[in-house]
């Protein structure tokens, strides 16, 4: 049994396996399948300042080795989260991390401030891929300036571990990662979904109500791996890797590329028990290759 412990800044993880926001609900939806306390962390659903109904149905389309979604951040808002959901998840002995989303900087700040007060939430993941309504709907996270502004503002009110989730729909993700680091992020996680589209040729209509949506699943893994490798070389803060991770081998690839921890997303739909299997598989790999700690393989790719 190898030592699976890792860390994201000051946040200690029992192992590197976390769940990606939006794919694992509040964790409780998967409690019949996975012992949540065996995971390094659970990143719960994107939470915004106010209740959001999200986009109209249909919101999902399957694509080759992937899927598109256009949920549109449906959630009941941070107050509902604090009052009704937090009590149901706060006693799990794992890192319960809240994904924070918004459409204006002051909304991010107000949401982060509310969550800062919750003792059992040791970290937030800041989703900066949301459209900035004050900037014509361009996402915060596609420019270094946009990323830096929102991270800096949240940093001022949030004193626990701040993970910034990066958009892959950019020319140079390392520039955005460095901007997040400069603005005080404790870590960056990547990649969020790639913007894609699917069409029903027979009906000559888009398959999503929003026309375009976010692509995830095994199809995106090579792009995610490349970006994690680039960003891990570009910043000093720890990197959390995600994008198509479906088994322990995939997870190990991200660790080798430089990720200190990983998130499992779409694969939870394929096998609701996959996260526990990935923890076991990483341990088996470390034992088989004679590594005493998972930390020995972080960034250990030989190029």
């Amino acid at each position: 049994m190898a030592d699976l412990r890792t860390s994201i800044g000051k946040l200690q993880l029992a192992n590197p396996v976390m769940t990606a926001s939006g794919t694992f609900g509040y964790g409780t939806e998967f409690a019949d399948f996975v012992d949540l306390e065996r995971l390094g962390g659970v990143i719960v659903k994107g939470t915004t300042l106010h209740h959001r109904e999200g986009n109209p149905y249909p919101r999902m389309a399957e694509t080759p080795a992937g899927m598109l979604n256009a949920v549109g951040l449906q959630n009941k808002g941070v107050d509902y989260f604090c009052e009704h959901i937090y009590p149901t998840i706060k006693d799990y002995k794992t890192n319960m991390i809240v994904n924070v989303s918004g459409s204006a900087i002051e909304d991010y700040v107000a949401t982060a401030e509310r969550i800062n007060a919750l003792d059992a939430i040791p970290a937030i993941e800041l989703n900066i891929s949301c459209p900035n309504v004050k900037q014509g709907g361009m996402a915060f996270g596609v420019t270094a300036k946009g990323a830096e502004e929102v991270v800096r503002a949240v940093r001022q009110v949030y004193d626990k571990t701040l993970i910034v989730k990066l958009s892959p729909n950019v020319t140079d993700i390392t520039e955005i990662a460095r901007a997040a680091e400069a603005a005080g992020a404790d870590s960056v996680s990547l990649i969020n979904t790639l913007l894609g589209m699917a069409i029903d040729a027979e009906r000559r209509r888009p398959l999503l109500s929003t026309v375009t949506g976010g692509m995830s699943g095994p199809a995106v893994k090579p792009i995610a791996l490349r970006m994690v490798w680039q960003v891990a070389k570009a910043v000093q803060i720890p990197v959390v890797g995600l994008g198509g991770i479906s088994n322990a081998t995939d997870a190990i690839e991200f660790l080798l590329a430089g990720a200190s921890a990983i998130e499992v997303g779409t694969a939870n739909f394929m096998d609701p028990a996959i996260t526990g299997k990935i923890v076991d598989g990483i341990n088996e790999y470390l034992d088989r290759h004679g590594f005493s700690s998972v930390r020995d393989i972080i960034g250990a790719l030989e190029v």
Partner: protein
Amino acid sequence: MKKYILDLKVRETVAVGRQFVLLRLTADDQLPEMVPGQFVEVRIDETPSVLLRRPISIHYYDKAANELGLLVQLVGNGTRWMATLEPGDTVNIVLPLGNGFTLPADTSVRPLLIGGGVGVAPLLYLGQKLKEMGITPTFLLGSRTENELMRIAEYEKVGPVYITTENGAVGEQGYVTQHSVLTREQFDQVYTCGPKPMMVAVARWAKAAGVACEVSLENKMACGVGACLCCVEDTKQGHVCVCSEGPVFSIDKLSWQI
């Protein structure tokens, strides 16, 4: 209800017409309790080409025989893979999922079960449960042609069966909502599953007739447990997940224009 991920064993894969198969599944241990209207999610092989599990309604659960029956319409690579399963093969299934139909509190209720296409599948299990309760269900089953009518004899074991086909080959010609039984007989509970236009028409009829009506929705879904919010239906409480808060809804809760 606790959910399970189980490797079920195929007893038999029975072709039903040209477009459907009946999967007869079992397990070494007793299968968990399942209620009518719930569904399962079937994993398609180990291939990433069909990424997502396929949601399939529970056609029947025969507790004594420890057998789960799934009636599957062959529409894509996933369902066609299911049709290739052979006795002894294993299939990975998450179950039971969703809420299920509301069973009547009172055995004097006269329920009408209206199905269209593969939507007839969950109505068999519902009918069987109603019959166990001492209630005789009436079935009204619709299809385009005689080729999509499935396992009618099984329904007839449970209660009277009325049929419509669009081409008139079997039963009355037309849509289920045009069948004469709707005017000839009195019902005080409707359960329906099928294509959305059919369910909307049924709901409209039920509302006009003042009959309580539950519909079982088939929205496209991913996680099956209310986590991803992909399969939402617009209701009077906003967007709710069909997989976890449904698939069965009272028409009073939906935002349908009926």
